[in-house]
């Protein structure tokens, strides 16, 4: 217990229950900071609950109960952190909490199920869960809402069993149990009548995967609003797909214009893209620092936040940029001071494959338990292009490029080059000696490369540690089983002892 990293056996905080025994003691300064942020998050949630419409939604939708665990969610992702990393983490996760409450409030505001405002609903365009939202940048009078994110994506991150009810509903309907739990959960949500009924139209996309495409098509039976299906090329690097993809964007914009009566506003679009580009520049700075001996914005501090601002916000929310500027400032200071993230960095790792939503805090465990420093993850290694801020024709191609490079499909589609080859390039750039290979067993895209990864890993002399999981269903592969995959490799192949032995095996099967 103390100010220093790894000064407390963190595994002792787990007692086999839903919650931890107590919160971590990080020394006076850091614990005080953590406490103030905890108060802040409760204040955000209390403000949310004071709105009658939100309160109605809370008691209408089963998935809302997942958000009871928000402070625990923040605790999990800040576990073991001290100093600048703790501050960066809070900057990100607290922002996510605030942003999520806004998204849910937008959903409930127009939700017909709970007597929402139909006028507001007419100004809402629904987007798929895993889909870039950049076309809406040109419609400042409309609000884009990714309806499935709070119930499914966040539901599973908040509680490891957060979406099991919906998964079971989909399986009872007849959807095979081997499909990816994300679209299956979304479908279950539709079957269970648990979607807020909001929005004047829906934009679907074939991101991220074949299952996602199928699930969305079927669940539309529940919604009586026009839909547009944005087809994004699978082999998006191929030149001949570019015109096709740009035309799809044009068709999508026309659909929104025709459905809502709004006109695409190029000034608004370019303004948002300017913000987006600024964010990209900052992200590139983060990556540069991550390649040094003193990485700062890494592990849990990249993954979920990058999803949020890259995909969901898309440059529309200036708050994200301000937040990132502050993070970058902290990062530079910490780098100058050569601040380490863990007491001992034994391995530098790239996380590849799709992370387990029900164990999104796994990178924290890697660094706290074994001193494996996760530098960057596959889902965060999306586009770092700087997009046009004044060329209208180019903008269609830019948007098409972004849609193709959505977080979850950027490397699972696109072919061997982006899915396999790039990994070894990143290993070199980041000087990583370990690849934590998330094997999402239901992901039909990445598992097809299994053997090739093994062969190439051997050739490149990189330790490839396979960590199987089932994205949102911990019943298939538990968190403990995920940890055991690493433990076994570390002990039997690398003959190492853990930094924090109390974390090697944790009784968190019942935990959030």
């Amino acid at each position: 217990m103390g100010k220093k990293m790894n000064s407390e056996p963190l595994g002792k905080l787990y007692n086999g229950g839903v919650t931890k025994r107590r919160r971590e003691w990080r020394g006076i300064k850091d614990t005080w900071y953590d406490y103030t942020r905890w108060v802040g998050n409760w204040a955000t949630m209390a403000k949310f609950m004071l709105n009658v419409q939100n309160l109605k939604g809370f008691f209408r939708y089963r998935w809302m109960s997942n958000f009871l665990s928000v402070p625990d969610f923040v605790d999990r992702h800040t576990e073991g952190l001290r100093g600048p990393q703790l501050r960066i983490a809070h900057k990100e996760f607290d922002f996510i909490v605030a942003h999520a409450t806004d998204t849910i409030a937008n959903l409930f505001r127009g939700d017909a199920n709970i007597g929402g405002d139909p006028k507001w609903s007419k100004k809402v365009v629904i987007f798929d869960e895993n889909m870039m939202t950049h076309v809406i940048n040109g419609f400042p009078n409309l609000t884009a809402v990714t309806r499935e994110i709070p119930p499914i994506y966040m539901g599973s991150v908040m509680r490891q069993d957060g979406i099991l009810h919906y998964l079971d509903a989909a399986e009872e309907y007849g959807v095979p149990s081997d499909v990816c739990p994300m679209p299956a959960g979304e479908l279950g949500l539709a079957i269970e009548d648990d979607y807020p009924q909001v929005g004047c139209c829906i934009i679907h996309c074939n991101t991220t995967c074949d299952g996602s495409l199928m699930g969305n098509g079927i669940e539309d039976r529940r919604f009586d609003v026009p839909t547009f299906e944005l087809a994004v090329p699978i082999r998006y690097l191929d030149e001949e797909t570019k015109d096709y993809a740009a035309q799809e964007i044009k068709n999508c914009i026309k659909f929104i214009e025709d459905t809502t009566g709004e006109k695409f506003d190029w000034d608004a679009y370019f303004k948002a893209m300017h913000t987006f580009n600024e964010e990209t520049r900052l992200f590139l700075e983060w990556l540069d620092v991550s390649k040094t001996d003193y990485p700062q914005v890494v592990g849990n501090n990249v993954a979920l936040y990058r999803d949020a601002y890259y995909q969901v916000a898309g440059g529309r929310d200036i708050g994200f940029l301000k937040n990132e500027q502050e993070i970058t400032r902290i990062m530079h200071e910490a780098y100058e001071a050569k601040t380490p993230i863990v007491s001992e960095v034994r391995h530098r790792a790239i996380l590849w494959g799709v992370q387990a939503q029900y164990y999104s805090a796994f990178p924290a465990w890697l660094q706290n338990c074994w001193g494996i420093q996760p530098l960057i993850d596959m889902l965060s290694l999306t586009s770092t292009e700087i997009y046009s801020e004044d060329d209208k024709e180019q903008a269609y191609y830019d948007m098409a490029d972004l849609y193709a490079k959505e977080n979850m499909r950027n490397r699972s589609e696109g072919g061997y080059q982006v899915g396999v080859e790039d990994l070894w390039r990143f290993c070199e750039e980041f000087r990583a000696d370990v690849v934590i290979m998330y094997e999402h067993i239901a992901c039909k895209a990445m598992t097809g490369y299994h053997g090739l990864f093994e062969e190439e890993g051997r050739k490149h002399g990189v330790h490839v540690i396979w960590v199987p999981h089932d994205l949102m269903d911990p019943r298939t592969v538990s968190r403990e089983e995920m940890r055991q995959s690493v433990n076994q490799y570390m002990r039997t192949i690398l003959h190492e002892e853990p930094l924090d032995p109390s974390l090697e095996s944790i009784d968190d099967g019942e935990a959030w």
Partner: protein
Amino acid sequence: MKDLKHLEYFENLLQESNNDLVREAKEEGRKAIGYTCYQIPEPVLNLPGCFSLRLSAPRVGGIEMGTYYMTSMTCEYCRALVERNLEGGYQFLDGLIGAASCSQLADAHENMEKHGITEREGFFIEHVDTPMKSDENAVNLIKTICEKRILKPLRENYGIDTGDTALRRAVEEHNEVCKLLNAIGEYRKFDNPPITGYEFAVLTLATYTCPKDKLVKKLKETLKELKTREPDTDYKKKYRARVLVAGSEMDDPEYIKCIEEAGALVVCDRYCFGQNPGRNEIILTEDEDALTQVCRQNVMENQCPRYMGQKKIQSRKDYVDKLAKEYKADGLIYQQMKFCNFWGYERAACSHIMRDDYGWPVLSIDRPYVNANSGQLRTRVQAFVESIEIKKIQRTQDASRAQGADKLHRTREVSKMQGGGR
């Protein structure tokens, strides 16, 4: 029923990818171009000097190597392709068009490429995107892909004539085979069809896996034979229900045999490697280039569940409903190869929608790539056939009860009119 004269001949052609007709065509100097998905317009690969070959892995045993490379959680068709390739089973190919129609197939092609397919001079492999919507933008995409990724290497590597006239000739050949097969298929509409689903599946599959021109003679003779072929007299006893089989890729006619042995005659199909819509004729006009028209038909008639859009999704159900009515089916069997994402969802949805919205009895099954002798499949089909029979009996009883009630009602009316009512 007496055996079809050429059935064994056709069956033998399905025993391996590099079959007698493929070898014969190659000896003539023609190039064998493999492909794996309906999304690639077939006539483009059947230009004079080359022929298309829909890849399968006949008689594949274990797929351990395929499983090592792609894990046990992926489609067995894809794993079987990888396995067969590692065995050197596709060395005779002169080209492979790998459609990225689904992630697993795309991965399978890349696995095949990384391990090497053949050392043949001029061999090329192209990984291509394919559309997912039935609109003109999609037509343009597949047309561009055909031009750049198929016609160009055919022209440059093998000197194939890829001009409009050559393509029109390929379409003519395609249509000739389709016409013959569809004429044979017409017999399946008969109350007592002189051809079984299994026999038809063998013929259909052969049209995908052999040079088409080399099948024409035998198909013609088979069509002629059917005109006089006497159907089984115990047809009603042997087949207690007529079914349409829909679903994912199926290149093993043994499955159809298994279904028929369990008492359900397969009178129509709507699966990959099947008749509908793969064996539709392509109607060309003179006012537009052939390639655009071929691509448009492929995109517009496509029935693959990967096609998005509510209209398209609904039209898939309407299409199956129309076929089932046309072929006088009593029920539908939706089958899905295990781990197929597209059909996993489509099958689940159709098992509800086709029953609730269209009134069809539906059997929904998932199955491995090969294992036609599955006792489980047999039992499920038997139970399905029985349920169809029970429904038929119930319908008859309901009808006669309604008739009886109607008669009684009329008698009462008459007696009322005659003043004899109570």
